[in-house]
């Protein structure tokens, strides 16, 4: 059975991953769209995205529109797989099955 992922387990990061997983493959959303959608501050969202990017779960790309920088966020293939496994692990708990100990790593 799949493990719970300590990086995704943090509630804000779980919401970010769920929001990105709801997009069609290849689609990306603007940083501000995600911030408003999840009710996070710029600093908070930025920190969580950096953590997810370090893990290789999200892709961040910066483009310039009318000379203003815009950051777009999308789920990576690795992120999609990790999120799917995390959700499976959660469903496993609800199914009354035993769950292996979480993988190491601190929650930020």
């Amino acid at each position: 059975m799949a493990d719970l992922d300590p990086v995704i387990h943090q509630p804000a990061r779980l919401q970010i991953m769920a929001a990105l997983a709801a997009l069609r493959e290849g689609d990306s959303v603007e940083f501000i769209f995600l911030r408003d959608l999840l009710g996070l501050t710029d600093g908070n969202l930025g920190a969580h995205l950096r953590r997810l990017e370090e893990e290789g779960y999200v892709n961040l790309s910066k483009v310039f529109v009318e000379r203003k920088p815009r950051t777009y966020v999308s789920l990576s293939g690795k992120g999609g797989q990790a999120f799917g496994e995390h959700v499976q692990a959660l469903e496993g708990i609800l199914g009354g099955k035993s769950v292996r100990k979480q993988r190491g790593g601190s929650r930020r």
Partner: protein
Amino acid sequence: MDQEEALQSLELVRQAAAQTRQAIARSGTGYFFIIWGAVWFLGFLASQLLGERSGYVWFGLDALGGVASAVVGLRAARRVRTTQGWRMGLFWLIVLVYGGLQLWIVSPLSGDRFMMFITLLVSFGYALFGLWVSPHLLGAGIGTAALAVLGWLLLPGYIGYWMAFLGGGGMIAFGAYILLRWK
């Protein structure tokens, strides 16, 4: 982690996914309905009042509607970059080309029949597009077609007024509903 925590986490996942889909569906849709509702309202009023001469009014209104839609579409595209955009454009292009070919084959049509043809073609496009992206659009397409046919049967001499107030007015009201309620 116990079952209660797992349940809360899955609920967070469900809510975030639903909010994302709804936010994407909402972006631009309400404005599109208001823009094309206004085009229909003014265009069908012109058809009723000016008859054959209303063609120029329709041409101008369609051009304005196209420009306004492009502006709204570009603003929405800044927030969500999607690979589906070109498919949507291609879909409406195909509907219009097929409609144009059918019109060419069955022409000449009287003013009222031409109005009904365009109305049914556009509502067919909405319904088909709705199957793909949103049940609201499917309902709007089928509802508009049903209203048009009802008006054609019951009030054949006043189809322009009928489509202006019920078709165009209905689209404006639906667009306002989306902007106010889909939050």
